[in-house]
């Protein structure tokens, strides 16, 4: 039977400007889903986010997978595989002074 972990990596954080989720080790898993659960998005702001990978959990580069631009609260996800050991989501709320209240969940399976 395969292993699985659902992790609430970031739990109901309020962000302005750029943010990055907590570095997660995922080397044991062969597939991953990142969920963005957006509960609030003020001032008609747009949230952009993408998956990043890392050789060391400290220095990060884009993996190539990105969420479509998010303009309203809801549940959103992207799929990733072939990611080595480290995974995170990096994003930005694109409007000065605007804020997003969101959670980042990571589902790992392998």
């Amino acid at each position: 039977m395969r292993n699985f972990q659902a992790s609430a990596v970031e739990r109901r954080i309020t962000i302005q400007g750029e943010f990055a989720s907590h570095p997660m080790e995922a080397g044991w898993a062969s597939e991953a889903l990142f969920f963005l659960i957006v509960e609030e998005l003020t001032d008609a702001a747009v949230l952009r986010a993408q998956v990043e990978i890392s050789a060391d959990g400290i220095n990060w580069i884009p993996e190539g997978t990105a969420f479509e631009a998010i303009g309203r609260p809801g549940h959103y996800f992207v799929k990733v595989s072939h990611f080595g050991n480290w995974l995170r989501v990096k994003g930005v709320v694109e409007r000065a002074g605007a804020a997003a209240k969101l959670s980042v969940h990571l589902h790992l399976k392998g």
Partner: protein
Amino acid sequence: MEHLVALDQGLSKYQPLKRILAYDDFDRGLCGWIDLHPNYVGRDFNTLRYSLVDKTQWGPIMLSSASFRLAGTHGSLDGTYSMKLSTRPVARPYTEAPAPGSLSHSIKRMTTHLPKGLRQFEMWYAYTPEQDRQGISEHAMRAFGFFFDVQDDDYRYFIGARYLNAVDGEMVRKWQIFKAKDVSDLEWAYGVENDWCKHGIDAMWYGRRYPDGSTDGFKWVDNGYQDLCYNESDDKINWGYARLLIDTQKREYVELQSGSTVFDLRGIAPTLTPPYARIKGLFNPSIWVENDSDRRVFFYVDSVVISAE
């Protein structure tokens, strides 16, 4: 009926009591260990009561290969994976309530099914701060600990140990055990009225803290100074052994072992608190780690054995 049981060779580095309740080797997954988080029972699943300690932001646990930027994969003692507790890169001065995310806490939720008596918590573990800068960063680790959260017919009590490694950048390296000073529930919760938490419960973050490293929640272990093995670089982790033996019949500590050192704790009682609703029989082994500065610190657990007489 007579049973002949062949034990996993991984157990040979442990000293379990007669009945093994859990042998959690994290090469097999998280084995029921989960992030600790508060009760989401309020409106829109928000918490009911205000507390000075925000327990929603403790850093997540994960299955780790203990991989580092220059060294590569350390792996675990018995294979590749350990359970890693990871704080977020935020901290407050020692004497303040811990910052949201400055701890990571893992818990396994069990209930008891045996007559009261001896219970034991053993683990092989390692720790290091995130290697995000040069130098040796041992002082960024404030503390780690392990304990049982127990509720019997009459009381709830936390019984376990904390290794206080550093306070505001100064090395301390002393063991403490859960035993609360005689303070009110209000003082215990940093002066917050109607906090969910009661005196003696959750000493990991409740109970006033003092500059010398003492707190209202812990008692120093006699002769409890101990140099643990912390290698010459933050990417060299050495697995260490810890063991806590308690007596749930007497509601007392028995022994704490760290490495080859055994601390005799006989006759010391934990702080007994009136029982909480709905959790009769609770028997939760738990582990936590706390940082001492605004960096991530990591606590790796190769395996855990919980046993009973």
